[in-house]
């Protein structure tokens, strides 16, 4: 996947780029609005990620220019500024999603997937890791061709973990992605939900596919390479 990332804060850019590259994305990075705009106009990207506060041409102006030129490339806005106003304006200008700083790179990746999926239609509906298959459209999960009934929260959690097998997610990260940012990080929501998913999957597979990482959180699968996609 080819991504354009416009961001002036070098330190943020470095870990975001690294995170995206780890996902196998091809990232093009530039640190000012003019560059970003001309690149977005000249090349074809799968997703454009715009920081709103970039020098010369700000993110909203780039978005406006793109949409006026008839470019429908999916755009995700990032901002540290007045969140609500930016979000409102960004969505009005035709942004596909919006992420407030500070954010988790994993969350950005999840949003990128969601946006691309929305645009490209059904191509990437099926996520399959090992014996588990997950259909994002029908919200159906199968394990060894047997259907596993999950609630919407359980489904979202499993999907989030499955997208990056082997990657460790902290409870806070999971909580924020599934329940939103406003929950008390000390709640046991995540643990209870994981326990339920495990129970349902184990009933079919007999294998615990979600590994606890002590004192940190959870990750999908284990170090066994057979779990990799």
């Amino acid at each position, binding site marked *: 996947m080819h991504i354009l990332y416009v961001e002036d804060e070098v*330190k*943020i850019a470095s870990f975001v780029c690294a995170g995206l590259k780890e996902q196998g994305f091809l990232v093009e990075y530039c640190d000012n609005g003019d560059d970003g705009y001309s690149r977005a106009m000249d090349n074809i990207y799968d997703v454009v990620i715009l920081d709103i506060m970039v020098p010369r041409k700000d993110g909203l102006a780039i978005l406006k220019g793109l949409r006026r030129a008839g470019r429908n490339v999916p755009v995700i806005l990032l901002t540290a500024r007045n*969140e*609500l106003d930016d979000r409102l304006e960004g969505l009005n200008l035709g942004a596909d999603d919006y992420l407030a*700083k500070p954010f*988790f790179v994993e969350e950005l990746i999840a949003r990128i997937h969601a946006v691309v999926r929305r645009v490209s239609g059904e191509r990437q509906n099926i996520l399959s890791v090992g014996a588990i298959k997950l259909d994002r459209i029908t919200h159906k999960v199968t394990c060894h061709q047997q259907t596993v009934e999950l609630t919407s929260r359980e489904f979202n959690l499993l999907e989030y973990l499955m997208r990056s097998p082997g990657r460790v997610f902290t409870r806070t990260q999971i909580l924020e992605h599934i329940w939103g940012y406003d929950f*008390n990080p000390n709640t046991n929501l995540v643990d209870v939900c994981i326990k339920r998913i495990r129970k349902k999957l184990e009933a079919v597979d007999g294998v615990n596919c979600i590994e606890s990482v002590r004192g940190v959180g959870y990750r999908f699968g284990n170090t066994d390479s057979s779990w990799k996609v």
Partner: protein
Amino acid sequence: MEGLKLRSFRLRIALMSTTLAGVAIAGFSIASWFMLYQAKQKDFDAEINSQLLEQFNKLRPETLAKFNIKSLVPEFQHVSPSDIAVLVVDGNRDPIYQSDNWSGELNGEILWKKSDPQKNPDPVDFTLGNLPPDRPPIGPPPKVELDQITTKHTNTGDWRLGVGSAPMMGIAIAINLRAINPEMNKISSVFLFSVPGAMILVAIGAWVVSASALSPIEHLTTTIRRVTAQELDQRISVNNLDIEFQEMIQVFNQMMERLERSFKQASRFSADAAHELKTPLAILQGELERSLNQAPLGSELQQNLSNLLDEVRRLSVIVRKLLLLSLADAGKMRIHQAKVNLSEILIDSVEDIGILAPELHLEVNVAPNLCCAADSDLLLQVLRNLIDNAIKYNLPQGWIKIHAWLKKNAVAISISNSSQDIPPEHRKQIFNRFHRGDSARTRKIEGVGIGLSLSKEIARAHGGDLILDNTPSGYTSFTLTLPVGAQGLAPLQN
């Protein structure tokens, strides 16, 4: 009365004007009464003098004995015979005739002039032409001296006494002043009716006038009321105002300007601070997230990084809330409205409560498909906050009740829970920023105390409200109301 007087400026103005007008009218009435009394007295005096002269004209020393008061009475109109007293004396100043009502006390007051034609400074000249035709004088007309008419006090009342002296005779006519009374009484009664009448008119007038005088103040009040925190830029126009109010408004406007400036500075400070905090937080969070995944699985380093990440996250949430609050303060909390199905959100939340606090008894009564136009992210935050509190401040083995219903054009959601009673002094401050209940201050319960304040601001930004219900002891209840189609915002889509 005193309190009432002090409270209503209008009433005070009306009372003061009425009192002033009353004093003025009363003073005027008394003065005019006295002037009328004096005028009446002068009328009598003139009458007495002319009668004295006429009697001297008619009478001659020889006919003195024939004098009868009856010839005199008809000359005084409006005076009853009993109020007229006459004394006639001869040349030796011995009484010849004395009317029945003549008071002896009056005698002592009379100083008859000695007859001395040469010394008479102003003898009245009786020419033939002046004589009444019916009774021609018998002798030559006498030289008459008239005394100044004076008031004499006797035990039969006050008398107006006129004395005329001639060489061979003297006549004194006295009129009792009570003769004026009937007429003066008439005048008094006119005053007695007209003065209160006038006072009532003045009072009504003053009440009406004070209302119109106070109408600019009412106008000011409505204008000033509009000037809320959201509209600190409001100024009152001085153009259409009376000069008296212009200065006050100018001062008010200047005050508003100072207030707006400091308010803007304060809210810009918190917005700037929040923004400035976000970039380093983003870097911290991103680097921690990355390091966490690079650390050896399950290592102590990874656990430490995880803890750090949680703290950074907590910091971010606080910064985000502060920014939202400063936006709300500046009236800039704009909301992205879409149709939100509150019933679904609540049912989801109920599922969460079941996980978060399985020991609590849960009672849910949510009408199906309650929808409103709202910003779902913000609304979710409000509901989270309320549910979170309901769990945090609950009693062991307690309960939570969630009710949602449609009332008029609003959706009402009440979330109540068994709890210790909130002390009255905390009830008042519960929506204040950084206020936390005593039990929460011990840090056993998470939070910084801006949740409820922010929730209320969010509810208000939607045109609704969040209130702490008055409940009997043993439980706490918050009710959130949201207009179905929030006012002043884009109409419901979808």
